[in-house]
């Protein structure tokens, strides 16, 4: 799978096959039709045909950008530390993939290559419940867009920050205070600490409530 250079055009016969491969890869990964159109210049009708042929379905419906930058970085009701960690891993895969050549690579190709690497890296030791917590390719695209595709970082809604404790590089919302945007691993560690402290108290409480 040769990288497609940034300046290659889908209409260029030298790259036509590579762009078709890219479209097939994006369809297999479940990307929305708009994303595939954006990166390959294929018409919507052709993408629908590819979907039917490769997956037996229509392209997924809904807007390209779902949620907001906060969803990927701020812990809350809809965003667990596990999801934040998945974002951390995907962005690291993308950063590493972007460095495999000295010349800039086409973003669609990078998205797909980084996403497939992310799936491969996160599949080991994965239980069936964990697998549903992984990012899908449309979320990965949205995350990258909020990060300025890691090249136009100035002004991007999400910025990367390095945890001074565990050295993890994780995304934060640039416009929000950093106080409540701590490192996801350290947050899990603090939670474990809290649970360990609460466990003896809970056991004592249960013993007291037992009759006799």
């Amino acid at each position: 799978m040769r990288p497609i250079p940034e300046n290659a055009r889908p209409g260029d016969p030298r790259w036509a096959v590579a762009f078709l491969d890219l479209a097939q890869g994006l369809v297999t990964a479940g990307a929305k039709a708009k994303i595939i159109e954006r990166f390959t210049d294929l018409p919507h009708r052709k993408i629908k045909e590819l979907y039917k042929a490769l997956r037996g379905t229509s392209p997924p419906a809904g807007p390209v950008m779902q949620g907001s930058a906060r969803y990927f970085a701020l812990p809350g009701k809809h965003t667990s530390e596990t999801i934040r960690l998945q974002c951390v891993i995907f962005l690291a895969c993308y950063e590493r993939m972007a460095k495999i050549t000295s010349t800039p690579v086409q973003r669609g190709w990078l998205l797909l290559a980084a996403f497939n690497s992310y799936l491969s890296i996160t599949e080991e030791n994965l239980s069936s419940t964990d697998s549903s917590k992984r990012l899908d390719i449309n979320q990965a695209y949205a995350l990258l867009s909020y990060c300025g595709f890691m090249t136009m970082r100035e002004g991007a809604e999400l910025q990367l920050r390095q945890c001074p404790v565990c050295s993890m590089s994780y995304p934060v919302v640039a416009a929000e205070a950093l106080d409540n945007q701590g490192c996801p691993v350290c947050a899990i560690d603090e939670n474990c600490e809290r649970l360990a402290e609460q466990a003896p108290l809970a056991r004592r409480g249960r013993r007291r409530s037992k009759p006799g």
Partner: protein
Amino acid sequence: MVDLYKLNRKIALHWLGRLDSKHAEYLCHVPVCIGQFTHGPGELEAVLSRQSVPHHNSLGVAKLNRQYLRYARLAAKDAAAGKLDRLVRLGINLAQAEALSNLSNEAINHLAFGWEGLIVQFTPQPFTRGAALHSRAAEQHARAFVAIRQAA
């Protein structure tokens, strides 16, 4: 994955001297190589072009270099066959992968002994800090090791 675990274990052991049970448990969950290979094809070529092999390294260092190079050669061949996640797992680029995939057994031995010191770099601090976390947090830290910024 077993080979990667063994390689990571050797790298960590070399730098830390000994590994405790938390370190060993942590390494089970790391999906990438904890060592950084930062050398370009030119540097490999320069060592290989020397006619006689100066034995810079102790047997332990040479063995670790050889283990890394063998693993990297296999991973680089996989990458050339389309498994690009191997590049992410090793943190190397296409030029490095091409040079590594073309190494013969003889060249690997030449590099393993002739390279001055270890061929991979490792920053122990993130590893030891990650392993010291509560077991669940340590596991998550290990799984996200790819996102750890190591000092160059």
